[in-house]
């Protein structure tokens, strides 16, 4: 079965970000697949490359990236929500004339059409509140 996860929680701010990560691991461990993880609202901060939690706390970014690597996960950050809050890829920073880019490796900026598509095509959609 194909799951889509929608994440509204900012990392290290709302538990939802960490819960979504645990749920994603459980989905994969159960033999199901993940169509897409869509980061929306404050959840877009999960895609910031600059997060640096203390060494003795869980590092959500590295864990998402590891999961992305091992399972070729589609980690999509909503571009409109990210522009507002300041998470930009190289090309967006250039297009919008901003001084730096901070989208983490393994994440992709894309439009809300990706949420529409995932909602229409996955078997299950689970949202993780902020």
């Amino acid at each position, binding site marked *: 079965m194909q799951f889509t996860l929608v994440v509204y929680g900012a990392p290290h701010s709302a*538990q939802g970000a960490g*819960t979504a990560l*645990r749920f994603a691991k*459980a989905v994969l461990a159960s033999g199901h697949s993940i169509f897409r993880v869509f980061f929306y609202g404050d959840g877009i901060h999960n895609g910031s490359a600059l997060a640096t939690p203390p060494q003795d706390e869980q590092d959500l970014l590295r864990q998402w990236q590891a999961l992305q690597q091992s399972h070729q996960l589609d980690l999509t950050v909503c571009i409109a929500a990210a522009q507002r809050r300041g998470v930009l890829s190289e090309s967006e920073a250039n297009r919008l004339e901003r001084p730096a880019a901070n989208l983490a490796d393994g994440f992709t900026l894309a439009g809300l059409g990706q949420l529409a598509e995932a909602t229409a095509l996955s078997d299950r959609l689970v949202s993780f*509140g*902020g």
Partner: protein
Amino acid sequence: MTLHIVNQSPHAGSALRDCLNAFAEGDALLLIEDGVYAAQEKAPLELPENDVFVLSADAEARGIAIAPDLTAIDDLRWVTLCVEHTPIVSWFR
């Protein structure tokens, strides 16, 4: 049948009450994160009689004793619950 997921404490906001107002016969309820505070025996809201699940990791993390008539589950069982139900509705904040 719908799986409702609530992540907010019943003392902090209306998510659980709102969820229960939109609950239909045969639906299932899963309490996660701060939602597990509603799973104690003396919780402020009356829960449905059947199919109420509690994410044990979140209850354990908070030192919550889950009322005996509720079902504690792990993450893998959560995935199964999602497979068994549609749609899945999250009630947060």
